[in-house]
């Protein structure tokens, strides 16, 4: 019996506060819990980045930042941003909120497990934060946690911090798995009648693919984390060769640090697509809605998502070109890495072509969405430099790499985070946010981040190495580079502080924002067709929706309105489109 047929039509939730808002099994509440936790811990990582920039731009200005503290900031900033903010936010936040709604389901298929997944995530964050309270403080091994250094004295947190980090990651992976089971099973099995795979919005395709990637790739991180924990706690030699450390011979021998890197990056590369793919899907839907035009090349977009997902598993060693691995591997990985650029480029073209011949409303979500295209373009293009092995050799471990991954992983996806929050805010909260504040937020963030990261690439060309506490007395670094660093620090702090305007807008609009209509953007996808705004528990009241058309019937020739929601009966053939007419398209 189809999952949709099991629906009895009414969905009682408990009315007690603790079951409704704390230990809730409602995917919408869980999504908000994920989102708020992720943003909170992300703000901490943002502050850490200010401290790092203060040290680089104005060395010695903050006396408490010594090399130990600096490397702890570097590590915690990176790990929090990649895993605890971006991954949790896109999948735990938007995945949870949108999957049941866009698929026409009442909730995820395993609501109890879904609730557990959030609490495990919160526990993982708490374990990570506790590294600030253990002797020696958090680990300072870099977010990549390479052995042997990560577990040896000489690197901060080698006693306790690294243990807390690895334990936190293990718990996060369990949380992710619980959530991931929900997302996959719900998308495969719980779509409402008529919602075939190709009628799903690209948001769902991309989150689905990202979840598959996560379920298959996070085990690699788990394996490497467990083995590193064993090396640290039990004296094993998975990754530890024979070394003489600080004058003392160690008892380990025979292990391979490069093995850790293979395992880590076998996870690490799909991880960046776990972050990027949901951004791709969300932005496609946002662009389409606000340009009143279907996503250009929907089929290619789906194939590109799947291709990117698949190829992402065979490119990992482009992070290891200079790792000391067998050099002949470089030929293979450079080739696969540049090949993955092709479906990615196709997506960029299609986003742009979605705007072409459109009817573009430049409101805040759209501004951020277009900002994404521009920033992702340059972030992706610089990846072509680094993927090409011969070019990576001089540029690896320089600021070129830092600029590249911030542009492509931080700025571009964060543009989509903002676009998506602004876009779905009316549905989630029932209120409209302040548009003026939103626009200010956009302009400062878009222009500001570009001003920060574009010049940074050139510091990399100059050879300036990354993960350096100080650059005093290096002759090959030009004097003016220090000036550039000062400028970057100032802009970064300014842009960072302005993000609080966004937080303020979101918080205040909850109470004082204008009441939002059910479908303020006149969008076609199912989440906008709920009878209540915000959607009630169970989403659809008595009857699940039935879907008759794909997700992008905007500006259908011959239709009266410039959008037809997915659950409106009717449809059109090739001829209808050519001659202009939707025979059964319901009016008004």
């Amino acid at each position, binding site marked *: 019996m189809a999952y949709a047929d099991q629906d009895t039509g009414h969905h009682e939730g408990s009315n007690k506060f603790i079951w409704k808002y704390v230990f809730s099994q409602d995917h919408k509440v869980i999504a908000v819990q994920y989102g708020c936790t992720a943003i909170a811990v992300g703000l901490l990582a943002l502050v850490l980045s200010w401290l790092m920039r203060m040290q680089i731009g104005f060395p010695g200005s903050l006396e408490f930042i010594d090399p130990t503290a600096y490397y702890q900031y570097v590590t915690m900033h990176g790990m929090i941003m990649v895993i605890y903010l971006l991954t949790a936010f896109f999948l735990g936040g938007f995945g949870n909120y949108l999957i049941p709604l866009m698929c026409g389901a009442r909730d995820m298929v395993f609501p109890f497990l879904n609730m557990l997944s959030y609490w495990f995530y919160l526990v993982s964050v708490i374990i990570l934060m506790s590294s600030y309270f253990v002797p020696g403080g958090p680990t300072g091994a870099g977010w990549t946690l390479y052995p042997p*250094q990560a577990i040896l004295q000489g690197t901060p947190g080698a006693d306790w911090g690294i243990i807390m980090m690895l334990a936190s990651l293990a718990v996060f992976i369990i949380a992710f798995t619980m959530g991931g089971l929900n997302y996959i099973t719900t998308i495969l099995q719980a779509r409402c009648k008529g919602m075939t795979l190709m009628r799903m919005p690209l948001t769902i395709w991309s989150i689905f693919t990202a979840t598959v990637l996560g379920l298959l790739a996070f085990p690699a991180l788990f394996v490497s984390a467990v083995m590193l924990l064993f090396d640290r706690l039990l004296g094993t030699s998975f990754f530890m060769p*024979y070394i003489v450390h600080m004058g003392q011979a160690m008892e380990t021998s025979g292990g391979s640090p490069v093995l850790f890197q293979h395992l880590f990056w076998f996870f690490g590369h799909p991880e960046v697509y776990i972050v990027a793919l949901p951004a791709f899907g969300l932005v496609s839907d946002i662009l389409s809605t606000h340009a*009143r035009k279907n996503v250009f090349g929907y089929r290619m977009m789906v194939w590109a998502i799947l291709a990117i997902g698949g190829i992402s598993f065979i490119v990992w060693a482009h992070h290891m070109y200079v790792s000391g691995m067998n050099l002949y591997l470089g030929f293979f990985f450079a080739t696969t890495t540049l090949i993955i650029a092709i479906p990615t480029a196709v997506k960029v073209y299609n986003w742009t072509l979605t705007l072409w011949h459109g009817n573009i409303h430049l409101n805040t979500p759209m501004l951020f969405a277009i900002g994404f295209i521009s920033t992702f373009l340059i972030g992706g293009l610089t990846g072509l430099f680094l993927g090409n092995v011969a070019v990576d050799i*001089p540029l690896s471990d320089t600021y070129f790499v830092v600029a590249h991954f911030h542009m492509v992983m931080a700025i571009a996806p964060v543009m989509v985070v903002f676009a998506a929050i602004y876009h779905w805010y009316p549905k989630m909260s029932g209120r409209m946010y302040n548009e003026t504040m939103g626009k200010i937020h956009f302009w400062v963030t878009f222009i500001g981040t570009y001003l920060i990261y574009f010049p940074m690439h050139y510091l990399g060309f100059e050879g300036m190495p990354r993960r350096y506490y100080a650059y005093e007395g290096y002759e090959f670094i030009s004097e003016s580079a220090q000036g550039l660093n000062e400028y970057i620090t100032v802009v970064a702090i300014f842009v960072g502080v302005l993000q609080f305007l966004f937080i303020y807008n979101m918080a205040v609009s909850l109470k004082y924002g204008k009441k939002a209509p059910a479908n303020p953007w006149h969008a076609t996808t199912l989440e906008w067709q709920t009878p209540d705004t915000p959607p009630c528990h169970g989403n659809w009241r008595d009857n699940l929706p039935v879907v008759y058309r794909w997700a992008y019937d905007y500006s259908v020739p011959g239709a009266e309105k410039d959008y037809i929601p997915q659950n409106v009966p009717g449809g059109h053939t090739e001829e209808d489109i050519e001659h202009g007419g939707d025979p059964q398209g319901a009016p008004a």
Partner: protein
Amino acid sequence: MALAIVLIAMVVGSVIFHFWSPWWFTPLASNWGAMDATIMFTFWVTGAVFVAVNLFLAYCVIKFKHSPDRRSAYEPENSKLETWLTAITTVGVFAMLAPGLIVYKQFVQVPDDAVIFEAVGHQWQWSYRLPGKDGALGKADNRNVTFDNPLGVDPDDPWGQDDLIVVGAPAHILVDQPIRFNLRSKDVLHDFYVPQFRAKMDVVPGLVSYFWMTPTVTGTYEVLCAELCGVGHYNMRSKVVVDTAEDYALWLRSQRTFAETQGGQAPGGDPVERGEQLAQQQGCMACHSLDGSRGVGPTWQGMYGRTEVLADGSSVTADDAYLRESITNPNAKIVQGYPPVMAAYPFSDDDLDAIIAYFMSLSE
């Protein structure tokens, strides 16, 4: 409209910045100009795409801005256009990949006439070893490392006896001579990086990694570590001097062979000078400055006789006894604010006398 202007300004500004930027490659000092050339070619291709797509974006934003009587087109796909775009992209991608792989092939294949040069990294300094007159490097392994044999050269291997050992001093290499850098680590991951040489490679304990290059311009170049290796990573510096044949021969003659380093230090001579020499050989300056600046460890300027506050809050005077202990058993007392990461250095009493004498000279 504002958005279009900003997008166009970004494009124009980026292009201008690129041509104006004072931050550019360091002057090339090796044969790897091909890497620079590949970067330039990549710039042209990606730059063209960057400009084209951004300008098209700006165009769309202007031309298709919302107006009440506008209606979007209904265009689910355009197979022809998409196929063309995919094909052009594929061509562009392979156009960049091909030269890159050709250059990489050169990188992977070490020339037959390359001489070997070994760099050994450990927290946080670089040491070097050259094959001696027999032209071959002796075997080496971390298991052979002792205080007197810091590079772990196998004492039983006859090929290693004449290897030249360079600790705590710049490396010298001969101009226009291909070199294969063999890289070893005594402890953690490092990376031997000289920006002007372009080539670099991680230094991995448990294996010998390598890269090759031919220096083409004489001069002195800075060596950096390019793989995070702990709190001293940013200060793991050294120098490489590219010599003409004459200067190189001169330098070679003044280096000590492995056999000589095993002979032990002859006592006598000016203690302050000997102390300075010992400190340099053990690489102390990687963490301790002489000019008062703060490093991984406390500065030596004015250290002798100074009152130090320890990690537990107590105070101590940096006298003979304290300084000897700090060298031979550093973790016994840690100065407040510094990490407990110094290795023990079991110098002989004579050596310690010399080093203390050197310290005293720094406080005058």
